[in-house]
């Protein structure tokens, strides 16, 4: 091609990127704001709680633990910090899993929960709680999450196997997931049916997501998994964005739709199984976190993926904070709060940015 032919469109290309840089700068600003919001939520979260410790006390306690007396040391280092950190990690993990599921299954309603992963974790926990006396030797704090995790992974593997065997389209995967949700819920109900009232209460309580049972091990595991998976997701941002042009279109250009769907399902299974096995069901975040990020940042996954992690973490952190201050002297399960604060936020955003919220 001749030099002259290139030069003119070359200018057009420069103009294209020039304009895009403005858009990208705006989105970077949004990401920075989301990050600031998340930090703010975190600070509020570590400040909130029944013991009367202000923000400054807590910060001082974090930076010089030796200055603390025994009681405050326990409050800050064994309760406030792990609870607040697990909120960030779980919120980020679920929202990341959600955004990847929604994109690869091309379904705005998809989340780790529509895939049955959370219902399977509950079934695993219920199974352990009901037959626990028969599994001797290990501590409950280890075995309960282990059961929840392995059931969640089994559910994910079942869906993966079914969808690869039958060459599943994205809709069939969602259908398998919903069928699995019903199956797991029925089995959990069956377990509850034969269990005593006390055991039922234990199951129900586990099922209601609760951040307060997390300790440093849980924080470390969830954060480590999140930190391992996020770079892999970030490596796939281009193809994830390309998928939003339609599956048929992507296949036609030779993009490996099957591979990306498989690896995303594996990532989602691990992320959400690890997240829910320690804290129970925290629905909503995996569904709404990505939508909020999408409305604020658009669908370019280079911004959307980090954005979804931030919105998820901020939302759950905020919910965790509210769960401690809403009813004086009591901690409302965060499961209840996420929906109660999440739904209004979500509705306001939808009416505010109706066009960005639409999905075709």
């Amino acid at each position, binding site marked *: 091609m001749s030099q002259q032919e290139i030069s003119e*469109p*070359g200018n057009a*290309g420069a103009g294209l990127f020039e304009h895009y840089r403005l858009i990208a700068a705006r989105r970077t600003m949004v990401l920075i704001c989301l990050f600031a919001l998340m930090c703010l939520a975190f600070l509020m979260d570590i400040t909130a709680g029944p013991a009367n410790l202000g923000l400054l006390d807590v910060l001082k306690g974090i930076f010089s633990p030796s200055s603390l007396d025994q009681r405050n040391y326990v409050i800050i280092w064994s309760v406030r910090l792990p609870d607040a950190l697990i909120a960030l990690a779980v919120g980020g993990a679920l929202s990341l899993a959600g955004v990847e599921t929604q994109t690869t299954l091309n379904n705005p309603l998809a989340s780790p929960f529509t895939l049955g992963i959370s219902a399977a974790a509950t079934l695993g926990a219920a199974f352990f709680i009901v037959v626990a006396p028969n599994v001797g030797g290990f501590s409950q704090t280890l075995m309960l999450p282990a059961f929840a995790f392995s059931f969640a992974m089994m559910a994910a593997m079942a869906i993966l196997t079914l969808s690869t065997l039958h060459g599943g389209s994205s809709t069939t995967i969602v259908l398998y997931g919903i069928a699995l949700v019903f199956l797991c819920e029925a089995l959990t109900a069956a377990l509850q049916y034969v269990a005593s009232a006390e055991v039922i209460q234990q199951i129900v309580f586990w099922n209601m997501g609760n951040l307060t049972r997390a300790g440093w091990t849980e924080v470390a595991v969830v954060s480590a998994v999140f930190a391992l998976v996020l770079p892999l997701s970030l490596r796939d941002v281009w193809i994830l964005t390309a998928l939003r042009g339609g599956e048929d279109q992507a296949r036609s250009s030779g993009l490996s739709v099957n591979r990306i769907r498989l690896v995303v399902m594996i990532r989602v299974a691990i992320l959400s199984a690890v997240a829910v096995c320690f804290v129970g069901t925290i629905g909503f975040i995996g569904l709404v976190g990505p939508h909020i990020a999408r409305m604020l940042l658009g669908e370019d996954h280079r911004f959307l993926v980090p954005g979804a992690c931030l919105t998820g973490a901020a939302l759950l952190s905020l919910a965790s904070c509210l769960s401690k201050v809403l009813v004086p002297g009591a901690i409302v399960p965060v499961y209840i709060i996420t929906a109660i604060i999440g739904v209004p936020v979500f509705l306001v955003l939808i009416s505010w940015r109706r066009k960005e919220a639409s999905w075709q």
Partner: protein
Amino acid sequence: MAVMSVADLHVRLSGREILKGISLPEMRAGQMVGLIGPNASGKSTLLRAIAMGNGTQGGISLGGKPVTAMKRAERAANISLMPQTPPLGSTLTPFELLRSYARATNLGLSNAQLGDRMGELLGKLGLLPDAHRKLNELSGGKRQLVGMCLAMVNEPKYLLLDEPTSALDLRWQLTALSVARNYARSREAICVAALHDINLALRFCDLLVVLKDGCVAASGVPEEVIDSALLADVYGVSARLERCSQGAPVLIADAANEIGASA
């Protein structure tokens, strides 16, 4: 060197034989090939078989190599198909979508090179003013043009277009096809386009293939292929090929035939 040959190609989908032994004249670099035929005659199936090997047992080779022997990455680097349906109307912009396609196919271009390529492509197809608008706000025709950009951005040796002009107005029908033809000529590529408009096919194609019920009804140089008997046989219409005042052949379709007219 782009050479495509299709010999005795059978395609079965869901247990049904859709293409029943298709053989095409050899297609060479720089050629624009038109694929015409009534609805459900197998045009899209043929293009998908070439691009993705869907349901094929051999029969297609590109540059002397059977497509079934090519790895996905090798196929992706050489062949692009613009599917019949335009890209989804998401909130992405043509710029974002096109860029993600270019990056996802690992073109290894610098931002500046990619910017040039995208600017050139979007410019030729009249999309520069819309480059940063949301796809769900663009008209169907514009979205179809975006689909064509997506297929062309990795500069494939084999460019397959499935009804690229179905949603376009007159001006862009002509533009889209001349962009495709110039692309084939200047890059020594082969472009195969499924078309419904026989006049466009007559004007732009070097070679025409007429499909009917999964078989080749005729193939060859456009003016030799298209005549009243063929149109009556394949489409069930009475039509004639006239010369316009400039001497170019023009098809005039008069009526749908009643007898033997199939759905």
